[in-house]
């Protein structure tokens, strides 16, 4: 593999051809905020939080899907990017009902911690207060669509780590919804293996284990990484 040299926030780094800007930045100790990115599954650039500036390109590019190139000059923390990141987070809060005070993921939520990390103390947009259901039909798990940000981590881990293909997305735009099988109650699903990987991947309180109450949902993502490492690199590092 050919090595590429580039700069990220003025820091000279070298990365292998085919690596993403996000991967190269992380290797170099530069932290880019992410939400839909999940170690172990492929990236889709859905949440737009990892947007970066690349010199010579007027558009902002998602660091998780754009590959490094020779001589690239990347900025990850400019005034413009901070403005858009905050806007993206505010829109996520306004679009569904994220009520941290009564959420199972309070204190362990990536949306919540990104918000205070960005200095977000209020949302400028009017909240939509849509009506969404909670699917509590499954024996072990629940899905609260009020808290879903449509990052599709659950869909990707269901299809590509577990290989069950139970979770899917239906609808378009703000009406998009994570569904089970052919939009059936989760409890009726014949394809769900009850592995719980979707719950482990969820960044918010949308997917939870039944029986956990406010602030009790602590995720264990290392299990997902362990499985992927074991499968792809044959490394069984617990």
């Amino acid at each position: 593999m050919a090595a590429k040299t580039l700069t990220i926030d003025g820091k000279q780094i070298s990365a292998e051809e085919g690596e993403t800007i996000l991967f190269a930045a992380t290797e170099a100790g530069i932290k880019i905020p992410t939400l839909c990115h999940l170690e172990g599954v492929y990236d889709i650039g859905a949440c737009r939080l990892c947007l970066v500036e690349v010199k010579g390109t007027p558009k902002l590019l998602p660091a998780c899907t754009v590959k490094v190139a020779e001589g690239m000059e990347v900025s990850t923390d400019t005034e413009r990017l901070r403005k858009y990141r905050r806007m993206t987070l505010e829109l996520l809060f306004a679009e569904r009902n994220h009520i941290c005070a009564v959420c199972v993921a309070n204190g362990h939520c990536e949306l919540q911690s990104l918000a205070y990390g960005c200095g977000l103390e209020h949302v400028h947009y009017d909240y939509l207060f849509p009506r969404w259901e909670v699917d509590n039909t499954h024996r072990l798990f629940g899905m609260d669509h009020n808290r879903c940000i449509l990052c599709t981590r659950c869909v990707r881990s269901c299809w590509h780590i577990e290989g069950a293909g139970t979770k899917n997305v239906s609808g378009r735009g703000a009406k998009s919804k994570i569904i089970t099988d052919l939009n059936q109650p989760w409890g009726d699903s014949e394809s769900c293996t009850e592995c719980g990987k979707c719950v482990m991947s969820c960044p918010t309180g949308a997917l939870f284990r039944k029986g956990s109450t406010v602030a009790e949902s602590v995720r264990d993502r290392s299990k997902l990484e362990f499985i992927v490492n074991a499968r792809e690199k044959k490394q069984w590092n617990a």
Partner: protein
Amino acid sequence: MERLKIATVWLGGCAGCHMSFLDLDEFLIDLAGKVDLVYSPIADVKEYPEGVDVCLIEGAVCNDDNLEILHQVRARTKVLVSFGDCAVTGNVPAMRNQFGLGNADNVLQRAYIDNAQFNPVKPRQDGIVPLLRERVQPVHELVRVEYFLPGCPPPADCIKALMVQVLEGKTPKLEGRQLKFG
């Protein structure tokens, strides 16, 4: 130097933010040495006075009474602080918004008719019992707000950090977990 006039107001919220304010413990004694608390649910004052320097507003705007007080507070106060998640986001009181227009009626139906054991009747006393608004709203959707302090409730040390800066006339700088919702 003239003592600063501060006030706290309780709109549609659970009073938890005021409880957290009382958790300031000995800082309350320092505060009492520097400011006059001119209006608050914990002070027996009927009318919101003119010329208030800083007001902390707890709660979302849920009914006509909340709105009327809010406009009065805005007109008579230099610095408004949205105090806690209900004021900042609508939080739990705004959950009824999810039931669409007519939610106010449904809420009353559920509370006073469906679940009533005795004398099922929706309370209606014009001029005494304030009418619920169609939608519960956070404070800044209705009036200009200078600063925001999220949290359910905001922890006492965050209130202290904010108050110290605001009382010095500075723009409060809070960061990281000090700004956590919930």
